[in-house]
């Protein structure tokens, strides 16, 4: 076995990446959007106002939750619509069904 000496070497990596800030911003936005979409409770409510005899209106409400049930919340919402209506002096019939 013979020692034949060493050869000195160096590896240099030079890099310029102008996209880094964009990626960082995108990653932050992704994380925030992710948490909002995973923790938010999504539910939709539809309202249809149709005229009835005697110049009155019928408000029909419909609700749909993405997961679980929100019947209690929906009933409260329907009650609020009816109460607000009576206050305005234009009593209307409110019919609703939540799912």
């Amino acid at each position, binding site marked *: 076995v013979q020692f034949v000496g060493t050869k000195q070497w160096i590896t240099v990596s030079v*890099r310029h990446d102008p996209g880094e800030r964009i990626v960082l911003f995108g*990653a*932050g936005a992704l*994380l925030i959007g992710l948490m909002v979409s*995973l923790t938010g409770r999504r539910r939709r409510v539809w309202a249809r106002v149709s005229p009835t005899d005697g110049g009155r209106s019928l408000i029909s409400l419909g609700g749909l939750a*993405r997961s679980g049930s929100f019947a209690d919340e929906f009933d409260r919402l329907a009650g609020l619509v009816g109460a607000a209506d009576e206050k305005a002096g234009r009593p209307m019939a409110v019919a609703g069904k939540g799912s």
Partner: protein
Amino acid sequence: MAALSDSLLAWTIFAYLAAMVCYLIEYAFGPRGAVARTAARELVTAVGEALPAQPVVIEEATAPPAGRTAALGRLGVALTVVGLALHAGVMVTRGLAAGRVPWGNMYEFVIAVSFVGAVAWLVLLAGRPTLRLIGLFVTLALILILGFAGVILHTDAAPLVPALDSYWLKIHVTAAATASGLLLIAFVPAALFLVRNGYEAGKRTFPYTIGEKLPAADLLERLTFRVHAFAFPIWTFAIICGAIWAESAWGRYWGWDPKEVWSFISWVAYAAYLHARATPSVKRTTATWFAVAAWGTMLVNLYVINFVAVGLHSYAGVK
């Protein structure tokens, strides 16, 4: 301190083992829960009357299973808490011996991950006592993970390699260990949901017979989703922090290192599960199979990559 840490690991495994025996006895000899009884009665009626079965209404049992064996179940929970305290002791003494946070190599990382899993399990149990019956599977998983760590992965306590010596170790690795622990433990309700769901659908062959005494499938499914939904942003955060650290340490934020690639694969797989779960047209069983597949990619990332692939994340220190 390092020797104390190692002997504490043995005691931790022993405590979890004792807890598992308690859960096992409760599981094997305890009465079936109210939920399971309801389902069984409906099925008998369906067979006896030759009429189409009524939809089986599964109510969520809020009370923990009672009976003579319930005391053993509670003892199992107590022993799990003892095991968790010893588990924490393993990490503290190890950290003192090495003079740093105790997750600097694969052995320590796996112990930290399983610690997070054990904590997550006890937190879930505190909220839903009816889940106690699945403690059997949780402690079994903990024993296997810790046993494998102690026998195969064990390395002596030592200072860190220079590349890891950064405050990002505390941020990136802590987030990764937390997310991994939660995602690994989330597999337990996911797999048990598939078993229990098959049982509720009337299947009585081997893996489904385990489902007889499990909590209701609906409860397990919601639990699966909640743990995943909680862990997934943490996993995302861990990958982002890893990229920031990689930029400052290696000069690029993403270099397709094997660990990076598999973290990304796991991320996509878990995103696919959460997306499938949020899509009404995808069946819950199909979505849960996505979670099981994603868990497989996590295992590959945790074990296979560290042993097989050579990359910049090769800090396992396993010879």
